[in-house]
């Protein structure tokens, strides 16, 4: 079972501010790492209802079965979308902090996607444009 959190940031600071605060990426990933309430109570049941009859039902059953047997047997992903110059300081320090106290069966992956400069603000317009073309 894989759980993920995604943030976008054009912040020039390294690491960007979206890592910090009560709803920051760090707190959210720590919540997924340490709390079965967030994973089990909400996400697994939410998917369970939607998996019924879906093409991915068999994959869900395998993943949920492993999760129910051992809630730490999961993969967590933090995805950061940036439109700044790529730099390891955007994630490295935070990733090392998350590794401390991580259960041995849990895998955590931090993925940083770099878009061309100043493209995040233009994303909603581009998505709307693609959707508009699809409808035509």
């Amino acid at each position, binding site marked *: 079972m894989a759980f993920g959190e995604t943030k976008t940031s054009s912040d020039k600071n390294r690491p960007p501010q979206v890592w910090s605060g009560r709803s920051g990426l760090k707190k959210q990933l720590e919540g997924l790492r340490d709390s*079965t*309430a967030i994973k*089990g*109570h909400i996400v*697994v*049941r939410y998917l*369970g*209802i939607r998996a*019924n*009859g879906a093409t991915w039902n068999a994959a869900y*059953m395998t993943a*949920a*079965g*492993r*999760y*129910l*047997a051992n*809630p730490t047997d999961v993969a967590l992903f933090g995805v950061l979308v940036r439109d700044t110059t790529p730099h390891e300081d955007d994630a490295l320090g935070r990733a090392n902090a998350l590794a401390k106290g991580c259960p041995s069966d849990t895998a955590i992956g931090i993925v940083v996607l770099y878009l061309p400069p100043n493209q995040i603000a233009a994303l909603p317009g581009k998505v709307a444009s693609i959707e508009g073309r699809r409808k035509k």
Partner: protein
Amino acid sequence: MNVTQKSLDEIHSHWAIQAISGCLVAVTEAARFRFVSGALGSSVGFEFHDVDDELLERVATAFELAAVDGLQDLLHPRTDSESRNNAEQAMAAAHEAYEFRRVLPVPSDVEGRMFHVLHTGRSHTPATAGRNSGSGSRKTRRLWPFLRHLRLSGIAMFSFSCSIAG
């Protein structure tokens, strides 16, 4: 339609219940002791091997997932035996989920309490929907402790709404 011993037995072959089969006996025993202990209060003391709330929650979740699998056939039954079996599975699993969920502590925060009561009530409803023994008054009695919490939470939520409106 009843929750039968056959459907309660068969639910144990479901993939979600198989996943937690290693701890099921201990958690079932702890849930029964918690329920009796809670009903009798401090008048009779019990010594039993309790389990973590997290484990109880996980076992309840497994039964809820088993219930979800047969929910469509419970809501929209067909005449074939597969549909009947799925519906019975949903009822048996919801019944078992309720047995575990009702002994979990009620959260102290308003939002958590509301969610807990509605969630527990939701598990209870399909579990008793077709039971011969599930008369209205009996259902209400079994839900009463949760309804009482809901009422208190409702008052708190109303106060919260008023403070926003004010």
